[in-house]
């Protein structure tokens, strides 16, 4: 039996009058790839923020890797984000005046100490060994997203969160990025939770859940 990495019960997030996420029960296994689909405003990003420790629930229970995120202090939450979670955004948020390798080292710096050799190796793993010294502006969209992946995995997170990571990419680049993520998951054994609008992208996951108006309306396993 696979062990459970994420467990939520009645997880809720309200913003004043608006209920962005209605009580949600969810279990994600260690090493699983979960895709989350839904329309804009369906609560996908809210769920992702709660799982990534970027936001706190209004109510309900949420446990990730044995940590009860409701009771973690601010310092504990920061440590959780630093050591447990890696995030890939649609807008990659790379620092424009730093080179690719320096962007990775920045993530190492916030985690612990920078290590250039390790940062180079990480970029080589995502196929950017020849673009180490290029700044984000000199890279294509797909390459930028690969730098983001290298940045997200450099600190060996157990949970990788993707917020529409291929939203800005063409078909070819999307495929390259998804293949890369798939390979890395096989090597590193991390869990992926990825929010997407794209059915093709969602199909890379082991399971897909559909949210609508803050409620999980459907769940599909791979091959269904």
């Amino acid at each position, binding site marked *: 039996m696979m062990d459970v990495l994420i467990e939520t019960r009645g997880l809720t997030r309200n913003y004043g009058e608006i209920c962005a996420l209605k009580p949600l029960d969810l279990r994600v296994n260690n090493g699983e790839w979960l895709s989350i689909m839904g329309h804009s405003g369906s609560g996908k990003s809210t769920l992702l923020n709660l799982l990534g420790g970027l936001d706190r629930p209004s109510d309900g229970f949420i446990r990730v890797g044995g940590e009860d995120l409701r009771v973690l202090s601010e310092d504990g939450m920061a440590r959780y984000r630093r*050591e447990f979670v890696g995030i890939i955004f649609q807008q990659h948020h790379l620092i424009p005046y730093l080179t690719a390798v320096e962007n990775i080292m920045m993530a190492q710096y916030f*985690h*612990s100490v920078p*290590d250039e050799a*390790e940062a180079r190796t990480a970029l080589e793993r995502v196929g950017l060994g020849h673009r180490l010294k290029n700044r984000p502006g000199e890279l294509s969209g797909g390459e930028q997203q690969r730098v983001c992946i290298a940045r997200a995995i*450099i*600190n060996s997170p157990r949970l990788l969160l993707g917020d529409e990571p291929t939203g800005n990419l063409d078909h070819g680049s999307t495929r390259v990025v998804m293949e890369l993520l798939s390979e890395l998951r096989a090597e590193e054994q991390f869990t992926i939770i990825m929010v997407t609008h794209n059915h093709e992208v969602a199909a890379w996951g082991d399971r897909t859940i559909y949210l609508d108006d803050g409620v999980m309306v459907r769940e599909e396993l791979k091959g269904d």
Partner: protein
Amino acid sequence: MGALKLTVLILAWGGIIIVLGRGFSVNRLLLAVSNATGFAAGVAVGALLLSTLQGDASFAVAKAVLSALFLLHWLVSLAALYRSTGEGTTVERFQKMSNNPLSAACCSIAVGILAGTICSFRFIPQGGEVPLLTVVIVGFSGVCLTAFFFGVEQFVPKMPVPTAEVLMAIVVSFILFASSSIPRLDLFSPLVMKVMKLIHDIVHQFFESMLIPDHLFFRPEVWNYIGLLFGNRVGLWGGMLIWFTPVLLVAAAIRLERLPSVAHIRQGAERRTLLKAHIRERRTRLVAPLIAGVMLAAAVFQSRFPAVEYWDPKPLKVAATPSGSIFIPLTGEIDLKDGKIHKFLFKERGRDARFMVLQNSAGGYTVTLDACSICKPDGYGQTEGAVICYYCKTLIPLETVGKPGGCNPVPVPFMMEKNGIAIDGAALLNLWGITVQATNRVKGAAR
């Protein structure tokens, strides 16, 4: 002013107790009792020294002990740096000793004795019978404070297990902070004097040894730079260097400690996390030398700007008789028999000289210039049991006023007459001229 001095002593004792409490992981009660016993014993030792030893001897003994402690601090710090920069040597931790009740008690008692002695020098007057009541009050206050600070200690954040040199650095800094609040126990000013002399000696000897010609041949601007080496600024900075170096050595020993190897770990993030933890731990341990440094800086401040009021009379103008002699009556406008320094100003044909007369404890009189042969002639002020040179802040015990050498006021030949003192005016002017010319020429020209 009195309250300020008291605060300094209480702060120092509190600091010592908290540091010892954090440093030794043995029974709190044992530590508290050892500290309190040591302190009470120290007060008694101080009282005995003050009542049995004549003149400056009791202060000299205490200062010698403090100097020895400072020297030990130096050696321990050197050893620490040696260990931490050695190849293939491991850094031995203080843990074993800090867990041993016997060593903890011994250290606490020894430190208590030192602190108690210093406090007794502040409160107990010199000479005569031991004032039992004062001794009991000071000792009892120390014991009460010990109990109070052991209470406070529990609320102080935990610090990493200190090494011997770290504990030593911080305790010594608190001791020196306390002792520098009593001018006659201050170590820093004499250190500055010694350094000034050492630098002067070394530069002079270097010129002699290396056959470098005299200033006659030098470009004036080059010679002025060399002259800076003789100023009291250099003595001050050199003194500070020696004063702070042990703490800096301890800090360097911590900073230069090799980080443990993480090469056996095969995951980068884990390696970096471990490295970060080691770096952070090392950085935390630097807090202790930093505190020690701050306390030493406070000691320097107290030494340079002592919270003491000086007796500094305005020089009284005197004139010479037609035969060239200056006569100062023992009583009259000024009473020379009060044991205080009395200053006089003699002016003749555009030349002047400042001198002072003092009745010593044996009843005899001394006449000296209001200047020494080393410093610029900023003059002296009188404080309890000593005169202080305003320029270099050195304390000269009253017993040695009238003897030549060092920063002592330059003695002036005089004749003791029935009702007063007679001094040769021309000789006085010449002596002042020679002294002031010598001290203004190269030394301390900065002020």
